[in-house]
Structure formats: structure tokens, C-alpha cells
């Protein structure tokens, strides 16, 4: 276990730290460390070969205390500003996957001076009219009480993908993984249920506030966040590079862990 509790402004935050090198704060998604997974996965370990990975768990996830008053993205951004201060991070690289990518983008447009590079891996969060983000809350409930085809279809490249079946098996998983799923959905629900789902209608017009280098990674078959969102990010950020990963869905870090770690690591150290 490489994690530790960090005391940041009145609450305990669980932070996993791996590897040496340039510091990158990684904000997690659902099919991810501190989400369904309790331990660092192949992606985090591979990234840690070239960087110092600092991965805090969102409020209520893993062993981070739940914040009962939390209700908006602003609250989450202030929470993370305090975490960064407690970690004594001044200027650093920020990366995030899925809803972690959303939070990373929200932090970057507010405090561009602290973020030297921004890596967004299948982030949710934009409102692209006519192309809504998939209903991950709806499909978190199984078909016929046991099958998670709908959830896997959103989070992976198809309902029966190998990576998806391993991450989200049919029927009841180990209690700790089920609890991880519940906790990350609870957090996601607080910030992303309303408006439906997982976006901030104002973020798109603010993307140009971040002028540093940005890497956008997108799964070719992402059925959770439509491809139009990748284009919107690319157009909105001033120095963006978009890479589409063929054969993958929404959970790139699970579906192509070492490939994604290589691209992100290279970008961070670039």
C-alpha cells in the first residue's frame, strides 16, 4: 500500500503516490483507482515509471471523507485547491480521466497559472447540443437484476468487451469493489446528476482561459462521451493536441493501459 491520508483543510484525503520524476496529479474516473478499483492498476504503474504520480481520491471515495455539504463543481475545485496547497504543489501537471478529466478542466480554466500541462483522458463535462453524455446513472442498475451490459457498453468498447467484463462482471462483485463503485457514483451524482448528466453548461465558453499545452485522448468507440465533445475540447483549448485511440471505448486507462501511459508520460515530460 503506497497511499496515505493527507489532512487538508479540515478533512482527510486519501492520496496514492507512485514513482519518481516530474509531478503529475491524476484525478480518477469510475473504472479507475479509487473508483471501482482499490489498488493502482497497470496504467498508474506504467505512468509511474516515467513520472511521480499523485492520485488523490475524490470526496467520499476510497478513504477520503465524504463532504455532506458538497453540491457543486465550485466546491470540488476549492477542495482540490486546498489539497494542492497541502501537498505543497505550486506549478504542476494535471491529468484526469472521465469525470476526473472534467474536474481537471474546471481547475485549469480557473487557475491556468498553476497548471503547466493538462492531460484529459475521455473527459465528460461539456454541453454539446444534440450529443448528450451517456446515462451512466441509469445503467448502473443491472438488467434482470444481474447483467451490466448497459453499463459496460457506456464505459467500454461494447457490452461484452473483455476489459469491461473483467472490471464490471455480471452479478455481485467483491464487497469492497461494490462499495468503491457506490462511493464514486455517489460523488458523481452530487456534482453531475443535475443537469443530466456530468457537464457544466458554462465550461465550453471558458476553455480558452487555459493557454498551456493540452493533450486530449479519446476512445474511437466511446459511447459515454460522444466524439463531438473531443472536437469541442480541441476547438476550445488554445494549445490542444487530440489523439483518438482506435478500438477503445470510454475507459482508455483500462482498455489500453500501457499505450495511454506512454502517450501521457511523454506529454508530461515533453
Amino acid at each position, binding site marked *: 500500500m503506497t497511499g496515505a491520508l493527507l489532512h487538508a483543510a479540515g478533512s482527510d484525503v486519501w492520496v496514492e503516490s507512485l514513482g519518481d520524476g516530474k509531478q503529475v496529479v491524476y484525478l480518477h474516473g469510475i473504472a479507475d483507482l479509487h473508483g471501482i478499483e482499490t489498488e493502482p492498476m497497470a496504467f498508474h504503474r506504467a505512468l509511474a515509471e516515467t513520472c511521480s504520480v499523485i492520485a488523490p481520491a475524490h470526496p*467520499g471515495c476510497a478513504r477520503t471523507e*465524504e463532504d*455532506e*455539504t458538497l*453540491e457543486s463543481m465550485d466546491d470540488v475545485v476549492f477542495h482540490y485547491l486546498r489539497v494542492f496547497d497541502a501537498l505543497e504543489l505550486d506549478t504542476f501537471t494535471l491529468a484526469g480521466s472521465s469525470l476526473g478529466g472534467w474536474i481537471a478542466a474546471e481547475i485549469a480554466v480557473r487557475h491556468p497559472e498553476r497548471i503547466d500541462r493538462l492531460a484529459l483522458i475521455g473527459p465528460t463535462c461539456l454541453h454539446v447540443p444534440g450529443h448528450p453524455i451517456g446515462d*451512466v*446513472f*441509469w*445503467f*448502473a*442498475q*443491472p*438488467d*434482470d*437484476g*444481474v447483467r451490466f451490459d448497459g453499463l459496460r457498453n457506456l464505459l467500454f468498447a461494447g457490452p461484452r468487451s473483455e476489459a469491461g467484463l473483467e472490471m464490471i462482471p455480471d*452479478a*455481485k462483485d467483491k*464487497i469492497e469493489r*461494490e*462499495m468503491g*463503485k*457506490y*462511493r464514486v*457514483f*455517489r460523488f458523481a*451524482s*452530487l456534482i453531475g*446528476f*443535475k*443537469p*443530466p448528466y456530468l457537464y457544466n453548461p458554462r465550461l465550453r465558453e471558458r476553455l480558452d482561459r487555459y493557454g498551456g499545452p493540452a493533450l486530449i485522448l479519446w476512445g474511437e468507440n466511446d459511447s459515454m462521451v460522444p466524439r463531438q465533445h473531443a472536437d469541442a475540447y480541441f476547438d476550445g483549448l488554445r494549445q490542444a493536441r487530440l489523439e483518438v485511440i482506435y478500438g477503445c471505448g470510454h475507459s482508455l486507462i483500462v482498455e489500453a493501459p500501457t499505450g495511454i501511459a506512454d502517450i501521457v508520460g511523454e506529454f508530461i515530460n515533453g
Partner: protein
Amino acid sequence: MHPVKLFCWHFMAYPYLPEDFDEKYDTGWVTVPNSLWNREKAKGLYQEYIDQLVYADELGFDGMVLNEHHQNIYGLMPSPNMIAAALSQRTKNGKIVVLGNILPMHLNPLRIAEEYAMLDCMSGGRLIAGFAVGGGPEAFNYDVPSPRARRQFWEAIDLIVKTWTDDGPFVHEGPEYPLRYVNAWPRPEQTPHPPVWVPGARSRETMENAAQRGYAYFLSSRSHGDQTRQAAEAYAATMAKYDRSYTPFDFGILLSVYVSETDEQAKIESRESIWYFLRNCLKGHLRTKGRTLTWGPGVPSTSPESWRGFLENWQFGADQLGDTRDWEDLDRRASIIVGSPETVREKLIALVELAQTGNLLIQFHFGNMSDELARKSMRLFAERVAPALRAESKDVFARDFPEMERMEPAQ
């Protein structure tokens, strides 16, 4: 000593679904297409249902129960207060129990305080004010973040009750519903305020909050057994923590009944409508087949600790009430009690004893049941079950709650 109170609960199901509904649709909730609504057939439907509740009042039931549901075929009362308003003008004696308004779905709790106060005045002080937090389908229907619903719920209840009891205008500081001028007109007729009932599904949080405030707890489970008794005991213990003595009138349960002349006759008459209710109305709610939205990680309203407790006991894919296969299976769940007046009386007195409850909230109309059969069952119940049940329940309460003799009459 008070006898058990017998309420008639109407859900107002949509009764005109096509026969192949179960094969074609994965749920009766939220996304069940409203193109299935048949305008011609549905003419007069509300009238028929309201008339059945008026009949319950005439038959001497202690009250009529209504509740709030949205975008589904299970219950056609997005606004139970409208039906309650109609009942206030057409019934004379029974309580009007709205169980309840789903508080987190409404923009401002002040509106609920106002409408309930109106209903209490319009009914001559017969309102029982129920408040519900809402479940999974409700979260999806009105886009309410589940983890926030509970904190909104208790703040809203406290604000509503204060609106009724404290002189206005006063300031309510929130955090969920900050208001500068709270000063509702009218005020309810009952003093200090209409009785408050809160439904719960055994969660510790709801019991704590209800007991602390002295409200009646209504178990929303549709199946009964040892867990029903455990819930009553848990509520009694929770009340004791706050120096309150439990009586059977602090606890209520929901069950369904069909009575006919004989056991066999009862089954023949109710079979179609009971299975319409189980297969169609419960699909998406209390049925494993299809897509149940009532609970799950996507609608995470309970605390992680409560969820852990649920997970440890829950078998994924296990049959629920809506998956009931046959009469024997139905009997085992003690949810829908079907039979002759003797059979029903015997099972209900056993249930009163088991659940230690003085409030039986009974559903008589199922799914697509005809008006004629619903009324027949209600009449047989009122004439041939209720009198004995009331008499026998007095004995049960005198034995199990002797201290109740000395207490104020229950509301």
C-alpha cells in the same frame, strides 16, 4: 383501548395496458412510453377511483391513503393533493392520508405547507400529512441528485412543521431552502399541526430522524415476515432513545387484500388483476426481470454504511414480489392476502401481532381490477373482516401494550 386502524389505500394504476406489455417493455416506470395511454378508455378513470375511495369512507374505514408517483403505470397520482382535495369535499369521516408528498421533487417546501394546510381546513381537520424522500425512479423523473435528497427532505419537513406551529413571518436560513419571509396563510385546522407520517425502508437514518421528532413511521416494504417485526422493534428502540414510548399507532404497514365468499372464489376473481399488478405495475420497481431503478449505485441515496449492510444481504438476481410465480409463492411473502373473510381475518390478526402495528394500510384495487370486484372486496372486508379484526386487535394491544390504557388517545 383502541382497535387497529384500517385504511383503504388506492394507488390508481393504469389498467389498460396491452396484453403483451411484459414481453415488449422492460419497465413500467420512467420510460414506459405514454403513447400507451388510451384517451378513450381512460375517460372517467379518475372518477371511478375517487368513487371507490368515497365508498371506503361510507363503509367505515378509518381513512383513505394516497401517494405521489410520476411517469409510471403503477400510480397515476403525480399530485395526490388534487385527489385529496376532491375527497375533502366528498367524504365525511375518514382521515385523508397523503403518504406523501415527495419533498425533494418540489421547488419549495412552503408550497407543500400551504397545500397541506388548505387540505386540513378543507377536510375539517382530517389530514394526515405524509412526507416521502422519493426513490430511484423519482430521481430520474425530476433530475434530483439522490445523495442530496435526504438532507433536503429533513430540512423541508422541519420548515413545513415550523410554518404550521410558529407565528410568522419568520426567516428560514436554509441551507437548502433559504427564505426571508415565511408566513403561510392559511394555517392548518388541527393543533399543533396535522399528524406527520414518514415512510421508510428500514434505514437507520430515517428511523432516527422520525423518532427524534415524534412522527409515525410507516414501513414501505410490501412483503412481511420477521423483518417487519424487526423494523417495529427497531423503531420502538429508536423512540426509547428519545424518551418516547412506542405504541402500535406509531408504526404502519402496507399490505394488499382481496376478499370474496370463499378462498377459491377469491383466487378466481383476483387472479388476473393481481398478476397484472405484479408483472406490469411492479416491473421496474419491485421486480427483478427488466430494469429496476428503485435502488442501486446510480441512485445512491443511502449512506455508504447502509449500502454495505444492504449489499451483504442482497443476492443479485433474487426474485422479488413482482417475480412471484404462483399462489403458494404469493402466500409466503405475506404481501397480498387473498381469501374468504375468515382466512383474511386470521392472517391479518396474525400480522397485527407480528408487526405490533395499529395501522394497516390496505390496498384493495390491483392493476386492472374491475370496479365491481374492488367494491365487493372492500364491502366484504368492512362487513365481515373489520369488526372481528377490531375486536381481536384490542385484546392483542391490551396484552402487549398494557400501559397504553393510561395514555392519551392516539390521533
